[in-house]
C-alpha cells in the first residue's frame, strides 16, 4: 500500500515495516467458529461472532488513523555485490549481424508453417477424397468419418448414410481438417530448425508412421466402431501426403532471424510510453545513476 512511504523511511537507523498483529488470526478463527457453529452448537457461532467483532475492531485500530509500524534495524548498508564464477563470457561467432544472439538464431517464420499446413491439408484432402471415390464410391465417406471424431451425431451413421452428404458433418470435418492442418504445419515450422538433418524424412515419413502406428494400436480399444471403418493403408498414405507436402513447403521458405533483441512493443509496431524505457544509442539506461 504505502511502498513509497516505506521506502522513503528507510534511513540509516532502520527500515519501517508493518507491525505484527494478532487480529487477522483472530478474525479468521472467529469466522471458522461462526461456520462450525452451524453444525455443532450455536454457542460456538456466538463465540465466533464475538471474536470476529473483536478482530475487526482490533484490525481497524491497527490501520486507522495511521498504520502501525516497527522499525527494523538495518545492518546491511551496502547491497551484497553480485558475483559469478563465470565472469568471462565466451563469444561465439554465430551471428555476425548481431552484437548478441540467443539460440536458435534463425527459424522459419510463422507464415511458413501456415503455408505448409495449408498445402499439406490440400494434399491430404485430395488423397482422402480419392480413397472415398476408389474404395467406397463416395467422396463423402472420409468426410463423415472425420467429423465422427468429435461430432457425435456422425458416429451414428450406418454404412450407407456415411456415403451421403450431411451439411453438419461436412462443416465439422472442414473445421477439424483446417485447424489440425494449420497446427501441424506450425509444429513443423517450429520443429524443423531443431532437426539437424533430413527434415523431410523425419517430418514426412517417420513421424506419420509413428503416429499412425500409435493410433492403429489404440483405436481398436478407444473407438472400435471408428476403427472398423478406417482403411489403414490409405490412412497412412494420406498422412505421408500431408507430411511430405507440408515439409517441402516449409523447408522451401526462407528462414528469418529470431527477433530476440527487439522489444515486443517495437515488433508489434506500437508505441507504449511507460512500458519501455526510451533509449538513444547505447547509452546507460538511466540518468539518475546506477549504483
Amino acid at each position, binding site marked *: 500500500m504505502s511502498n513509497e512511504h516505506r521506502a522513503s523511511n528507510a534511513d540509516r537507523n532502520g527500515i519501517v515495516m508493518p507491525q505484527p498483529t494478532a487480529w*487477522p488470526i483472530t478474525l479468521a478463527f472467529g469466522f471458522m467458529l461462526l461456520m462450525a457453529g452451524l453444525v455443532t452448537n450455536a454457542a460456538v457461532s456466538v463465540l465466533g461472532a464475538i471474536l470476529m467483532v473483536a478482530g475487526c475492531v482490533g484490525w481497524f485500530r491497527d490501520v486507522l488513523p495511521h498504520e502501525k509500524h516497527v522499525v527494523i534495524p538495518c545492518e546491511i548498508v551496502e547491497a551484497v555485490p553480485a558475483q559469478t564464477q563465470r565472469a568471462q563470457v565466451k563469444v561465439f561467432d554465430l551471428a555476425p549481424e548481431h552484437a548478441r544472439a540467443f539460440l536458435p538464431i534463425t527459424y522459419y517464420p510463422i507464415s511458413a508453417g501456415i503455408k505448409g499446413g495449408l498445402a499439406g491439408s490440400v494434399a491430404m484432402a485430395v488423397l482422402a477424397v480419392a480413397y472415398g471415390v476408389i474404395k467406397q464410391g463416395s467422396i463423402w465417406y472420409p468426410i463423415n468419418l472425420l467429423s465422427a471424431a468429435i461430432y457425435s451425431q456422425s458416429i451414428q451413421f450406418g454404412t450407407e448414410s456415411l456415403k451421403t452428404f450431411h451439411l453438419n458433418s461436412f462443416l465439422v470435418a472442414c473445421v477439424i481438417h483446417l485447424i489440425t492442418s494449420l497446427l501441424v504445419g506450425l509444429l513443423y515450422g517450429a520443429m524443423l530448425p531443431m532437426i539437424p538433418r533430413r527434415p523431410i524424412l523425419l517430418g514426412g515419413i517417420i513421424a506419420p508412421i509413428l503416429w499412425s502406428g500409435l493410433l492403429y494400436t489404440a483405436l481398436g480399444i478407444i473407438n472400435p466402431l471408428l476403427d472398423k471403418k478406417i482403411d489403414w493403408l490409405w490412412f497412412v498414405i494420406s498422412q505421408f501426403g500431408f507430411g511430405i507436402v507440408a515439409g517441402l513447403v516449409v523447408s522451401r521458405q526462407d528462414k528469418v532471424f529470431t527477433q530476440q533483441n527487439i522489444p515486443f512493443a517495437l515488433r508489434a509496431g506500437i508505441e507504449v510510453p511507460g512500458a519501455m524505457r526510451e533509449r538513444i544509442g547505447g547509452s546507460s539506461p538511466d540518468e539518475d545513476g546506477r549504483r
Partner: protein
Amino acid sequence: MSSETMALSPHAVETQSLAERLHGWATTVDHKRIGVMYIGFALIFLVIGGIEAIIMRIQLALPNNDFVSPQVFNRMFTMHGTTMIFFVAMPIMFGFGNYTVPLLVGTRDMAFPRLNAFSFWLTAFGALLMYFSFVGGFGLYGAGSAPDVGWFAYAPLTSKVFSPGHSSDFWSLGLIVSGFGSIGTSVNMITTIVCSRCPGMTLNKMPLFAWMNIVMSGMVLFAISPLTAAQIMISLDRYLGAHFFDTQAGGSAVIWMHFFWIFGHPEVYILIIPSFGFISEIVPVFSRKPIFGYPIMVGATVAIGFISFSVWAHHMFTVGMNSWGNTFFAITTMAVGVPTGIKIFNWLGTIWGGKIQFKTPMLFSLAFLFQFLIAGLTGIMLSSTPFNWQLSGSYFVVAHFHYVIVGGILFAVFGGFYYWYPKITGKMLSERLGKLHFWLFVIGFHLTFDFMHIPGLLGMPRRIYTYEAGRGWEIWNQIVSVGALFQGVAVLIFVFNMIWSYWKGKDAGCDPWDAWTLEWTTTSPPPEYNFATIPTVHSSRPLWDLKHPEDPDWKYE
C-alpha cells in the same frame, strides 16, 4: 535503537522462548514467514493426502479385498481429492508465490500484509474445520464420519436424504472458509504485482513467475466465486429447503455440475500456471540461457487463462448435451492445447543449445516437460466426445488427471523446492538425496500412472471399492499400487532431506545457482525487509547486468 526494535531483529529470534516464537509466527505479517507457513501447512497435508491414497491403493491391490470398509473407502477418495487440491496444491502455490513474488519484483512485502496473514489463517482453519469432520461428522454425538460424496460432490449425493449427519456440511463449510482465504491472497498478489514493482521493472521486464502468478490470481477470483456460491446453495438446500439441486422439487442436479466444473476446470490451470512459472524460472538458469520467446510466453499464459474458462463442460459430455454443445466444448478444449504447446516449444527452445546443468531442480523440470506433454495428449484424446463417452468415469480419466497433477504440477513444485530452498533456509538441499528422491519418484510415478491408463481402457470405473478376479485388472492394479509405495518412499526421502539439510546442509550463500533474478541479490534467508535499498532494474535479468557490466542485457532489450 530501542530494546523493543532489537527484539524483532532476526538475530534476536534465536534467544526467544518457544511460546514467544509461536506467538511470533501467529502474529506475523511478513510475506516470507506467511509463505513458509503456507508451504509447511501444505506439506503436512501432502503427507495426510498421501496416506489416504496409499490406503486406497492397498485396498485396490488385490481383487475382493477388504482392507477397509466401503464407507471408509468413500471417505478416503473424497478426502484425498479435496485435500490434495484445496489443502496441498493451492496453498503450496500461494506459499511459493507469497515467498518469492515480492522478492522477484523487488519490494519489501505484499501490498496488504495483514490481509495476507488473514488469508493464510482462513485457509488453515478451513482445513481444520473439514478434518474435524472425522470426529464431528455426526454432530459429535455418533462415531463420526468424514465427507464421502466424492471431491466433486455431485447432487443429489449431498442432499439430506443421501448424506445424513454433518459430513457434507463440514465439506462445504470448510471450503467456504478456505475459499475466502484464496480470494484474499489473490487480491493481494494482483495488487502487489501491479503496484509494488521496483523502479525500472516494466511489465515486460517482470520475471515470468510473477506473470504466471498474476494470471493465476485473476483466475482464482473468477473460479472460486462460483464454487463458494454453490457451497452456500448446498447449505441452503440442506437447511432452509432451498431446492437448488433438488430435482424432486423443481431444482436441477446438472446445475451443480455446471457450477462445480466452471470452477473445477479453471482450477487445473490455477495450479498448472504457477507450475509453468517454476519451470520458466528454473529452465533458463540451468540451461544458462535467457528464456526463449518471453512475450509469447506471457501471451500464451494470458490466452490459457481466458480459454480455460470456456471448456468446463468437457467434464459433462455424458450428461446429454446436444451435439453442438459437445462439439463446442470439444473444440475449445483442443484450443487450450495451442497456447500450452507454444509454451512447451519455448521451454525446449530455451534448453536447445544451452549449457545444461543437470542439477535436481532441472531434472524435475525436464521430467515435467515430458510428462506434461503426455498428460496434454491424453487430455486431447479425452476432449474428443465419442472417446470421452467410452472412458468418462473410468480409471483412464483418473490416470490422465494424475498425470497432470502429479507428473506436471507436483514435479514442478519439487523442482521449485530444490531451487528456492537455499533462498528460504540459507542451506542447500543435498544433491545426492535429491537425485535419489527424483529417480525413485520418477519410477514410482510411471509405475503408478502409466499403468493406471490400462485398467481404465479395460473398463475399470473410478471410485470402485473392489473388483472381481478374472477381469484382467489384477496385475495392473498391483503394479499401480507398487508404484504408489515407491512414491511414498521418495516423498519420505524428500522430507528427510529438508529436515537434515536444514541443520547439516551446506551454506547456500546469496546466489548458489548463479541466477539472474532479484531474489538472489539479497541474503539467504533474506532479512525481514528483503532489500536494504530497493533495487532498480534495467532488464529482465537484473543480476546478469550486475555480473556482466561489460555486456549487460539492457543494451539489447
